[in-house]
C-alpha cells in the first residue's frame, strides 16, 4: 500500500520519525468504505512503529494505537491541531478492542515497541495515552514496571481525545462508556452481510434443489414457479438475521439474540404467508416457518460477536438452548419441505 499519509520526516536524536497528516484524503475514506464491505479487510494495515503529527517535541504526548489502518486513521483525524507522537503496535491489522481481546494489543507488544523505538530518547516524560478499550490486553502496572512509562487510558472514542487532554487526561463517565447505537450497528452490517455469503449461497442451492422435487423426480420447467420464490424466501431469512435484527436490536422484546432473530424471522414468515409465498400446502407452510426462523435466529445469534455488550457466559448460556433448537428447526424444516413437495 502506498503510504500517502506520510508527508515528511522529523529528525529526532539519532533517527528520523515519519510525519503523518491529520487530514484524511479521499483514498482513506474510500478504503474505509471498502473494508466495511469486507474488501481488503485482512490487509488494511500500516507499519508498526513511531509516527509524528503536527510539530511535536520532547514534551509532546504519545498516543498508542493498533496497526489496522481504520484505527490509525480515526486517531490521526481526531488529532488535528495537536502536536504529538503516535506509537503503532503490531496487531496484525486488527482493531484495538479485538486485538486487545486476543492479546496482540498487549502488554508484551507495548513494552517491546516502546524499547524498539527508544521512546525514552524521543520524549522527556513518562506519559503514554492508550485507548480505553486497549485495557483488555494491557496491564498498566506491568507496563510501568517493565518500561517505566505510565499508561493513561484515554476515552473510548477517538473523537473525545481533545476533551480528554483539555480535562487534564481524564475521561468522564460518558467518554468511558461503550455504546451500541443505530449508527454503530449500521456500520457493521455490510461486513456481516458479505461474510456469510457462502452460507447464503449454500442454503439457496439446497432449497433450490428441493424446490424442484416432484413425485416423478426433478423438474425445473418453470424457475419462477418453484425455485425462484424458494430462493427469495431463504434470502429474506438471511436479511432478517443479518440486517433487520441488528437494525432493530433494542426494540425487539427479547434478551437473547437468538430469540430476537426468531421473532424477526417469524414476522418475515407471516409477511410471506400473507403474500401467499410461504408454500402451497400445510407441510410447506410449516417448513417455511421452521427454515426461516432457524436461519434468522442463528444469524442473529452470531451478531453477539459484533455487539459491544454480550458476555462470554451469557452467550454460552444462550447457545446451550438456542443452537439445538435452531438445528432441529432447520432439519425438520427441510424434511417437511421434502414431504410437502412429494405430497
Amino acid at each position, binding site marked *: 500500500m502506498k503510504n500517502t499519509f506520510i508527508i515528511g520526516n522529523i529528525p529526532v536524536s539519532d533517527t528520523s520519525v515519519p510525519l503523518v497528516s491529520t487530514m484524511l484524503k479521499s483514498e482513506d475514506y474510500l478504503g474505509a468504505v471498502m473494508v466495511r464491505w*469486507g474488501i481488503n479487510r*485482512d490487509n488494511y494495515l500500516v507499519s508498526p512503529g513511531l509516527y509524528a503529527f503536527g510539530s511535536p517535541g520532547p514534551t509532546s504526548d504519545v498516543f498508542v494505537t493498533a496497526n489496522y489502518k481504520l484505527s490509525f486513521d480515526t486517531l490521526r483525524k481526531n488529532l488535528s491541531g495537536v502536536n504529538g507522537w503516535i506509537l503503532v503496535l503490531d*496487531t*496484525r*491489522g*486488527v*482493531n484495538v*478492542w*479485538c*486485538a*486487545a*481481546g*486476543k492479546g*496482540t494489543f498487549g502488554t508484551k507488544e507495548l513494552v517491546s515497541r516502546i524499547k524498539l523505538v527508544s521512546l525514552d530518547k524521543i520524549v522527556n516524560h513518562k506519559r503514554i495515552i492508550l485507548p*480505553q*478499550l486497549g*485495557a*483488555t*490486553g*494491557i*496491564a*498498566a*502496572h506491568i507496563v510501568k514496571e517493565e518500561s517505566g512509562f505510565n499508561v493513561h*487510558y484515554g476515552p*473510548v472514542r477517538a473523537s473525545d481525545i481533545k476533551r480528554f487532554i483539555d480535562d487534564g487526561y481524564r*475521561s468522564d*463517565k460518558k467518554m*468511558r*462508556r*461503550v*455504546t*451500541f*447505537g443505530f449508527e454503530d450497528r449500521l456500520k457493521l452490517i455490510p*461486513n*456481516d452481510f458479505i*461474510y*456469510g455469503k457462502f452460507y447464503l449461497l449454500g442454503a439457496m442451492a439446497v432449497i433450490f434443489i428441493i424446490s424442484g422435487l416432484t413425485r416423478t423426480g426433478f423438474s425445473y420447467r418453470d424457475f419462477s414457479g418453484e425455485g425462484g420464490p424458494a430462493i427469495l424466501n431463504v434470502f429474506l431469512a438471511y436479511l432478517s438475521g443479518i440486517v433487520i435484527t441488528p437494525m432493530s*436490536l*433494542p426494540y425487539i422484546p427479547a*434478551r*437473547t*439474540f437468538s430469540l430476537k432473530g426468531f421473532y424477526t424471522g417469524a414476522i418475515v414468515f407471516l409477511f410471506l404467508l400473507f403474500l401467499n409465498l410461504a408454500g402451497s400446502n400445510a407441510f410447506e407452510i410449516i417448513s417455511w416457518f421452521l427454515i426461516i426462523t432457524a436461519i434468522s435466529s442463528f444469524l442473529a*445469534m*452470531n451478531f*453477539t*460477536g*459484533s*455487539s*459491544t*455488550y*454480550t*458476555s*462470554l*457466559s*451469557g*452467550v*454460552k*448460556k*444462550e*447457545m446451550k438452548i438456542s443452537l439445538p433448537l435452531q438445528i432441529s428447526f432447520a432439519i425438520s424444516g427441510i424434511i417437511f419441505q421434502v414431504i410437502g413437495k412429494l405430497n
Partner: protein
Amino acid sequence: MKDLLYLPDVVTLKLYEETCNGCGMCIKVCPHDVFELSGGKAHIIRRDYCMECGACQLNCPVNAIMVNSGVGCAAGIINGILNNTEPSCGCSDSNSNCC
C-alpha cells in the same frame, strides 16, 4: 440512548473488596460502568452490564478482581468447539466477521 442489557445473573465477575486498595483503575477501564468507588473501595454496582472483557482484572494491581473473560461471540464459541480450543473469534486470521 438507553443502555443495552444482556442476560441477567450470568457473569462470572467477582470483586474481593477486602483486597481492593481503592486505586480506581477498574473504574477507568470498564466500558460499562460496572464499578463505583466509595469509602476507599471499589464496589460492583451494575453487575449485569458486565461483558466479561477482563480489562478490570488485568489492570487491577492487587488482584482483587476475578472474571472468566473471553469473547461474547457465538461464532467464536462455535470455532472453539470445532477446533477444541478456547472460544476465539478469528479476527486476525483470514475470513472473520467477529468484532
